[in-house]
């Protein structure tokens, strides 16, 4: 069985010049969007807990799933904020 050598033209290294900011919004827009989603999630989870408390026929597991979703979303935003603050502190401590 004859295995041909790898064609060097096929494995050209990707150029670093293509690493520009991705189109369609900056980081701050993304963060704002995430904060808004988190707020919506928390409000809807709060609403379903309220419905449950006043005795409306709500599926218990739907309430729990919504609570978990809100919690995960909040955790994501908190972690991003932590990383951002860490980076900021590092830059602030930099000696010039």
């Amino acid at each position, binding site marked *: 069985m004859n295995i041909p050598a790898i064609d060097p033209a096929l494995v050209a290294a990707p150029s670093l010049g293509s690493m520009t900011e991705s189109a369609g919004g900056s980081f701050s827009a993304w963060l704002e969007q995430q904060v808004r989603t988190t707020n919506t999630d928390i409000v809807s989870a709060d609403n379903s807990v309220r419905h449950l408390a006043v005795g409306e026929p709500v*599926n218990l*597991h739907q309430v729990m*799933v919504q609570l*978990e*979703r809100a919690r*995960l*979303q909040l955790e994501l935003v908190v972690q991003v904020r932590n*990383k951002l603050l860490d980076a900021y502190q590092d830059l602030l401590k930099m000696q010039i």
Partner: protein
Amino acid sequence: MDFAAVFDVSAAGMDFERMRLEATAANLANAQTSGTAFQPLRAIAASALPDSFDLRLAAALPRPLGAAIVPGNAAPRMVLDPGHPDADSRGFVAYPDVSPVSEMVRLVEIGRAYEANVRALGMARSMALKALEIGSER
């Protein structure tokens, strides 16, 4: 977040198991009622086509489709009880064809299936929380 897809599909599974529980509870509650008005109930759902247009459009996982509680069409169980007010001319009383043994087996099955859905959801949740811990151990 894409873990939300697992949340949704597990919640749909839990919805369906709850519906099956409702049908089984109604069967057990009406097992001793006379007459042919009550037919044993069953919760049924079709499995979604894994490649259907709706699923592709929503980029969602396949889930139980069109879940509904429908009455079965089993012949009633006839019990000889001439003194019963609902007895027919030959002294037989019609009861719904509910077998307590198979309903009990179904109950156990429903409980385990619900538990499995909860477990899958919990695993998705703890995986997401673990992923958010990346890089934070100090």
